[in-house]
């Protein structure tokens, strides 16, 4: 993308003000977005995200600047600007201008796209979408179907003053179906959107038919549902996207971005038991073809598999470069950013609760009166307090150990530190679900995941 000579010059220029560390991140990203509404192509777009960012560290203080002008002149100007930003470009260390000894980061790609989105015709992508539409339209009471397709190919270069030189191409594809079921004035929605760090071959395993049918199934299942009850109840949460509970309740506050500011209730709990012994939780960047895969992170470090909680004991945080400087913990390959407009921060990759011994049936059968949250929506957390919430897309009442009538409008709220102790049963059917996670360094593809779990008590927000 850029010559090593130019990158070395820019890094040296940027450090003239006495910075301890300089890092250049350049990006050239091509996206395709397509939308079918009622089977007709409504939107076709996409384009080219293109720019570079320079990060300087003075101790743990960060100066970051970016530009779209990725010409030699544009990058030299950026380096001047970033060097001046701290005020005064006094000491000049010209050593090494043009002579940084770059070492290529030796990380073999975890996955290579077989049907690369840039080599596939848009008509082929539309054909996948039409198959998904066909599997949802008219099923039961489904009256309205939207199908969204996204592919994103991000080519990056990360070079830094320690001599790191990492280039990577990240390929993501995703297909999302939203179905609206309607009967008179009753109306409900269902949506399903799996994705992967793969090319179009992903849709050989997650077929468009399965994706469309799942969205339609949820919309139909919820159409005649009554409202969920309100109050504290035991809840069985489904696998796959159900993992959003761990993501919100615990994941975010195990990122050093929260820990370093003492805005995490787990900041001083390393080595302590923070969860029920049935809980082992992992954040993994090394799953080939996963939506949250990082061959290298956005600081040029190869991804890792990080055990966060082992049998209830807090084992590790997720650590980026600045987080490591501030907390002393070793980096875990968790430095991620949406694009060149963000400095990296510690972020989740594929985060999941590991398999336990139970079965979904055994968990449900032990509940006298509670909720089965089969499909989750999204959620959020307030770092600092650990208070979190998430929405349930598909829920059922559990009565006397049996799944009973469907419920709509359920949300679950709680506090991460407390509810982690209330996970009292974990099944063995781990699966990952895909989402976009928003935080300080932008919106990122992350997997959430878990087997079915039982939470002894959680606040359910309904209105019955």
């Amino acid at each position, binding site marked *: 993308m850029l010559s090593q000579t130019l990158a070395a010059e820019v890094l040296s220029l940027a450090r003239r003000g006495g910075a301890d560390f300089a890092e250049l991140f350049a990006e050239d990203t091509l996206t395709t977005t397509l939308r079918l509404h009622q089977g007709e192509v409504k939107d076709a777009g996409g384009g080219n995200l*293109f*720019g570079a960012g320079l990060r300087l560290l003075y101790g743990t203080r960060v100066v970051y600047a970016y530009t779209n002008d990725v010409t030699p002149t544009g990058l030299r100007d950026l380096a001047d600007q970033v060097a001046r*930003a701290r005020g005064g470009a006094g000491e000049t260390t010209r050593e090494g201008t043009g002579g940084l000894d770059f070492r290529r980061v030796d990380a073999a790609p975890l996955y290579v796209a077989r049907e690369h989105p840039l080599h596939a015709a848009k008509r082929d992508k539309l054909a996948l979408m039409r198959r998904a539409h066909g599997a949802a339209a008219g099923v039961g009471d489904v009256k309205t179907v939207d199908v969204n397709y996204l592919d994103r190919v991000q080519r990056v270069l990360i070079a830094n003053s320690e001599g790191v030189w990492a280039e990577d191409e990240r390929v993501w594809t995703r297909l999302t179906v939203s179905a609206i079921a309607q009967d008179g004035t009753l109306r409900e929605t269902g949506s399903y959107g799996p994705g992967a760090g793969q090319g179009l071959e992903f849709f050989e395993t997650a077929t468009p038919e399965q994706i469309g049918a799942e969205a339609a199934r949820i919309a139909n299942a919820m159409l005649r549902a009554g409202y969920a009850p309100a109050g504290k109840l035991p809840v069985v949460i489904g696998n796959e996207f159900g993992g959003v509970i761990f993501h919100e309740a615990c994941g975010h506050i195990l990122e050093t971005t929260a820990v370093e500011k003492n805005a995490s209730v787990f900041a001083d709990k390393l080595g302590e038991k923070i969860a029920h012994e049935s809980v082992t939780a992992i954040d993994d960047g090394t799953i080939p073809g996963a939506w949250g895969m990082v061959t290298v992170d956005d600081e040029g470090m190869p991804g890792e598999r990080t055990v966060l909680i082992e049998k209830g004991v807090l084992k590790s945080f997720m650590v980026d470069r600045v987080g490591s400087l501030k907390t002393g913990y070793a980096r875990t390959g968790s430095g991620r950013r949406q694009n060149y407009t963000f400095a990296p921060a510690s972020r989740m990759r594929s985060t999941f609760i590991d398999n336990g011994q139970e079965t979904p049936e055994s968990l449900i059968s032990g509940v006298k009166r509670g909720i089965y949250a089969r499909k989750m929506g999204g959620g959020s957390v*307030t770092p600092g307090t650990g208070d979190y919430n998430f929405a349930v897309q598909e829920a059922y009442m559990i009565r006397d150990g049996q799944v009973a009538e469907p419920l709509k409008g359920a949300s679950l709220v709680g506090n991460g530190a407390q509810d982690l102790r209330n996970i009292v049963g974990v099944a063995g059917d781990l699966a990952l679900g895909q989402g976009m996670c928003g935080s300080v360094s932008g919106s990122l593809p992350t997997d959430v995941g878990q087997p079915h779990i039982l939470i002894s008590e959680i606040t359910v927000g309904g209105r019955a």
Partner: protein
Amino acid sequence: MTQTEQLSIADARAYLLDRARERGVTLEVYGERGTSTSVEAFGGEVSEFKLEARQGVALRVLVKGAWGHSFTENLSRPALDRALDSAIENAELVAPEPGAGLVAWPEPPALDLYGEGLSGVSVEQKVQVALDLDRAAREADPRVVSVPYGGYQDSDSQRLVGNTAGLSREARQLYALHYTAPLVSEGGQNKMKPDWQFTREFTELDPTRTALSAVEKALALLGARPAPSGTFPAVISGECLAELLALFAGMFSGKMVEEGKSPLAGRLGEPVASPLVTLRDDPTPVRGLNSRAFDAEGCPSVPLTLIEGGRLSAFMHNAQTAARAGTVSTGHAARQGLQGTVGVAPSNLILQAGDTDAAALASGLTGVRLTGVSGGHAGANPITGDFSLQAEGFWLEDGVTAYPLEVFTVAGNILDLLAGIEAVGNELHDTPDAVSAPDVRVGALAIGGA
């Protein structure tokens, strides 16, 4: 990554319109360029200093009655050519639309969103705002344990639209803001509450006031007790009502209506809210967060009343949704950055203040004072109007605040809630969502707690 000359957005627009005319293509070019500075402070020091410069163009072409989109931040001539090719290729995939076309709109209103500018403001002054805010929040009360999030941010941006029908529009705007979120702790309870200030004049920023206000709001949440579960009368703060309205603004979009995704479809002229409710969208206040003289298609911006005295009086439209609905654009064409397509979105939504003062609003009420909701991206469904959200608030006994409530939930339907408004406060509260609303009282609100 091609390292060739980058054009300005104005030159890129001229270049693209020339190329389109040569090729006989109907083209609209939308361009954005912005520079901004942000400073985050933590623990008495600047933790992050960021300088941003971003520009790019979005293209929309009309080929045989069908729109194709593309965008590029690479403004070299080869990249612009590729973007034009890509938009044309996309148009060939899309279904044609009746009434599709570009318009050379009349002149927009004169609107000064630039103020005095930031040219006389030094980097040191900006840094000082962030540090003052951090210090004032930390020193405000011994129960402040940390101020994890806080800082200063400004932006100087330019926006332009041009099309092959002869339209050419440009506008500049500027803002400065600061925000803080102090974390307070007492008796094992942690609470955090943000506050902020937005202005177009740097000298108006008052970090001490913002810091004290945020700390006061956070401290008020300490001592929380479990919330009951059930349905209670409630006062909803203007900030909270504005958060709810922001989540459901899509109901008023002509695009959502035509696609069968708005519960208000087919209800123009009907009562949809309490007669006390009047809701407007106004793109023209100088202090509005989303103010603008023209929309993403270059159509002039004017205020629009969506609900008048409880009756649904209009939907928001861009030129295309208007053409399909047999009406005219209301100037609500919107782009989310350069990457999306042209949609429909509000500018500044304002639920008009009423005539009840704050004390009278809560008078005699035993129930809930709801001050905030979160989790709306998943827990609010704009297609049905249903919501089930994490909530924050207080218990009221006979109109007097008794104690704050531990994390609880609130659930309902936005249209039922608007219909159930019994009294409207006389003071407007602005929010970072660009929605302003007064406090209101409702007869029944479902909450879930212990």
